[in-house]
């Protein structure tokens, strides 16, 4: 139902390959744009509470590192945490090697707006 959803951003605010941090009902949510598809999950990594929304942030002198940006996305599909590269399933919120899990949230795009259901 539309009333369960909260508008968190305009779809064109978030570039593909990046994350954005938003707060919904006092809860930190990481919103991701993966090749034009939006995903949302709890913003704090189940490992050591890194802010997952920082995925895709350009590193200091990133052009001189193997990967230019912090963390990233895999085909699993998963988000790779910007701190220690744990891969967390975008649909499950689960990190396979540890079995640790965080919440994932439904997302939809309507009239150019991104909405998240908490």
């Amino acid at each position, binding site marked *: 139902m539309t009333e369960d959803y909260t508008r968190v951003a305009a779809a064109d605010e978030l570039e593909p390959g990046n994350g954005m941090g938003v707060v919904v009902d006092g809860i930190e949510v990481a919103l991701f744009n993966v090749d034009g598809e939006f995903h949302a999950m709890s*913003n704090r990594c189940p490992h050591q509470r890194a802010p997952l929304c920082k995925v895709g942030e350009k590193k*200091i*002198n990133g052009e001189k590192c*193997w990967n230019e940006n912090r963390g990233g996305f895999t085909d699993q599909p998963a988000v790779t945490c910007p*701190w220690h*590269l744990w891969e967390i399933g975008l649909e499950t919120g689960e990190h396979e090697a540890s079995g640790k899990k965080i919440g994932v949230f439904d997302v939809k795009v309507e009239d150019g707006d991104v909405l998240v259901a908490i």
Partner: protein
Amino acid sequence: MASQDVDPQREVPADAFDERIIDLDFHMNPPEETLIQYVEDDVAREKFENVEYGMAHRKAKWDAAWAIPGGNEGLFTQGRAEVASDVKLAAEKFAIDDPIVNVGINNAPTQHNPVQKNAIAQAANDFALDRIVPEDLHCLMMVPQWDVDYAVEEIHRVADEDGIVGAYGWFGPFDLFGDTKFDPLFEALVEHDLPLVLHGSLSFWPQDTPYGDGMLTWTEILGFDWPIHAMLTTVNAIMSGVFDKFPELDIVIEEGGHWWVPFVKYRMDEFYEMHPGDIKMHPRLHEMGQERLQRTPSEYLRENVYVTTQPMAPPERSTDFEAMLDLSMAEDMFLYSSDWPHQTLDPATWAFTNRAFDEDLRAAVLHENAEELFGI
């Protein structure tokens, strides 16, 4: 309380920004072409300009790249600090007030040629004096431990410069520091009031040995090779009387683990008390005419040795965490380290979110121990 503010962008809890945090292991990686400019020896500089400097040319069995999704991403997971302003920018994000910078050439001891290695140490130290210290950052000088005479010369040259707070060397499969040949090095460090800060090196466990050849995973190599070398380095220094001869000397073990402290503490005392008779046969103690160590082995551990915390790897339950911190003498021995920019980065979140830490312990680990040790 500030920590209750919700801010998705924040890398560490808000309270971390209100506490002084001194970081014992912050790597800076100046571009090679910049470092080469500082090499004074013409012969060495000519080689650096024309020959790529890197890992020793031999088979390499272990690679972190096989263990993580990003391939060779582990060394620069967070970025690469090439100049002092990069260091400040990175530190600020993680609420680190005082990153003690090392120039981070951890493959230096794996190189074979002493002229080349000494030139690297000299260049790294001059780079630090020229580019890091003037920017109000504290720094570790590199100590060429493979050549004790040169190491002493370099300590006398660099140690008293403002901003140089410690001497950076390596534990690993090299000559153990209990060897009396290191005494002039210790003497110079004590004279200049510099702690010896030993980091793991990229030498790892010697290959072509059954142990070295048997380990095929990064968890074994980085996770356990380094702590084993760290433990042996520590016990060797204590049992060979290094701290009897140099009671003012302090040694910091960086990235060699810390939860081994209780194991070493109790086991070292137990074994020594049962078998103390060979102490007097060690050349250093023999020369000093000493029958026994002057203190219980674990007392040297508490008073002369420090360990850095990264990665903290805490147990799940805070009561277990608290007990381990207590048994590990964390209030006396632990020094916070982030290891920025490597994949094993350890922001100090645990000190603010876990009930194992009270105000005193937090202050000791995050800054007081380092303030006292380095006089900063």
